[in-house]
């Protein structure tokens, strides 16, 4: 007996009852479609997170004063001073650029429009450290930085809110009542997580300290690591230096934090991966339900075709040949459902990715998994009915009404 004959028999049995076959495989269609849609959208989300993080700047360390709780009260550790930044720049090797920054919520006003946003005071290296690019205009000049000139660079959200479609370059807007001339606009970053990084005003650090915060404190320090240096080593050097400068005794915990963007990226993408696996597992439940549907119909079919099985046994079919015939029928049903499900999931995940503005990436392993799952479901749930068919007594089967 040839495999081709078995396939032919099974597919003819399926075609004989088209509606029933379609309804039976519908369970697997839905199961495979949901599993592969979850996995595709999930891996697209992971990719998106990775892309977003690389937009934040590569090899970026962020040094911030620590926060800790003391008797239920949130206490912020003492901020950094310009001398700390100078010390880091001078004593730690492997630093490409360093940008001290301070931030505060401000009200920006232009004409009759006003907008609540955050203002950051920093140097021009802030933009290159964070990989941010200018859409139009220019960055600060050295003179502007040193003198704390009243100039600013604005993010795309601020531009839209205050200027709409108009050209903001050269305009003077008021930040907490003090006037600043707009010299540049940042490219839109459109990040999907975290605070809106386009809602942002950048002014020279000196200007921020003098006119907005009124102190020389530095809220955070951005450090970009040179190519060829490990960010872990640079991080450790900065830690040692800061502990020394902040006079922490050995054994005392750090009262500051150094965040590595690479770590954040890994944490975030492993989170989305876990979430993807979790959603995939939930979707797999529907695949099991689909399998039960196949088992149910195959059991009905074996009962209906008892006489046919009896005849096949009488003309000399062996048990394994009957078993294979029904098993292949179940696998074909399931496979048909699986292929339909994959087609459906292609469409569904494409539209979902578009709707959530994720990049649509089709992973071959998702297709392979959907294919493999549907074969496995067919074999697993087709076995019991097929086994029952093969164990029929030919005489009783022939007499079956």
């Amino acid at each position, binding site marked *: 007996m040839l495999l081709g004959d078995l396939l032919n028999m099974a597919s003819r049995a399926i075609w004989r009852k088209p509606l029933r076959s379609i309804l039976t495989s519908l369970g697997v269609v839905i199961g495979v479609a949901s599993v592969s849609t979850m996995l595709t959208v999930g891996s697209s989300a992971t990719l998106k997170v990775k892309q977003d993080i690389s937009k934040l700047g590569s090899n970026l360390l962020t040094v911030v004063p620590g926060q800790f709780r003391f008797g239920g009260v949130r206490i912020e550790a003492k901020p950094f001073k310009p001398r700390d930044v100078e010390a880091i720049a001078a004593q730690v090797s492997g630093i490409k650029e360093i940008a001290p920054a301070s931030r505060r919520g401000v009200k920006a006003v232009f004409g009759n429009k006003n907008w609540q946003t955050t203002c950051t005071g920093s140097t021009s290296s802030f933009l290159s450290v964070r990989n941010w690019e200018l859409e139009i205009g220019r960055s600060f000049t050295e003179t502007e930085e040193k003198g704390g000139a009243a100039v600013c660079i604005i993010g795309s959200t601020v531009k839209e809110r205050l200027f709409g479609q108009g050209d903001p370059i050269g305009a003077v807007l008021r930040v907490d009542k003090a006037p600043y001339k707009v010299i540049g606009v940042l490219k839109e970053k459109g990040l999907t997580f975290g605070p809106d990084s386009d809602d942002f005003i950048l002014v020279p650090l000196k200007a921020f300290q003098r006119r907005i915060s009124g102190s020389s404190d530095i809220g955070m320090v951005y450090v970009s690591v040179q190519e060829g240096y490990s960010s872990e080593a640079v991080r450790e050097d900065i830690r040692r230096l800061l502990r020394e400068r902040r006079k922490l005794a050995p054994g005392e915990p750090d009262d500051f934090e150094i965040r590595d963007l690479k770590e954040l990226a890994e944490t975030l993408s492993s989170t989305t991966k876990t979430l993807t696996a979790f959603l995939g597992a939930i979707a797999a439940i529907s695949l099991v339900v689909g399998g039960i549907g196949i088992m149910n119909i195959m059991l009905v079919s074996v009962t209906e075709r008892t006489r046919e099985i009896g005849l096949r*046994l009488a003309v*000399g079919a*062996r048990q394994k040949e009957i078993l294979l015939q029904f098993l292949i029928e179940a696998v074909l049903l399931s496979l048909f459902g699986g292929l339909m499900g994959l087609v459906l999931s292609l469409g569904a995940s494409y539209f979902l990715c578009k709707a959530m503005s994720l990049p649509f990436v089709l992973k071959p392993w998702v297709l392979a998994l959907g294919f493999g799952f549907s074969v496995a479901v067919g074999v697993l749930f087709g076995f019991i009915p097929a086994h029952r068919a093969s164990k029929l007594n*030919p005489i009783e089967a*022939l007499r079956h009404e």
Partner: protein
Amino acid sequence: MRSPLIELEEVHKVYGRGEAAVWALKGISMRIEEGEFVAIMGASGSGKSTCLNILGCLDVPTSGRYSFKGMEVNRLTSDQRALLRRNYIGFVFQSFHLLDRTTALENVELPLIYKGLGPKKRKEMALEALELVGLRGREQHRPNELSGGEQQRVAIARAIVTRPLLLLADEPTGNLDSETSRSIMELFRALNREHGMTVVLVTHEEDIASYARRRIYLRDGLMVREECS
């Protein structure tokens, strides 16, 4: 001396156990040589169908010995018996047992699929068998497009397509009118006489049995009489 095709010795068959046990056969012995045409006669419940199922290796005796072509059927596994049926035995049933929505040709090809023959050879042999039963030109008809007599001819073609040593028929005319019955019986006689096929049929009708050269009468699981013509 050449061993007979079929040899039954003190064959008993019991269905069920204990109180509910039914003795279908209570010690049957018979020999059937190759080329014979035998009818097994009896009222319903006489054990004639059980006897035929045992001869066809669909069932095994509870006790006693059955040898087919020198092989001890009792000792064979169900798969080995399936191979015996596949290679040496053809069945014809009272209710035809054709697969519906399947053409006459495909119905006849079925046993050849299990013999592992390719599509071309199958078609050739199936057409030959259909020709032999007088259904040339009807091979693309489905069972519901054929009369009862024609359906039984398809079933006979299916039984003989593997060129079996033994053709077994269980009440082959039970569902047919008397005129059709006669033509079916003529067909069996021709297969026996002209093609040397050993035919064993089960019936309760005297005039059907009269086509056979030997008649074995069963009653309550025992052989009561045998006659030859």
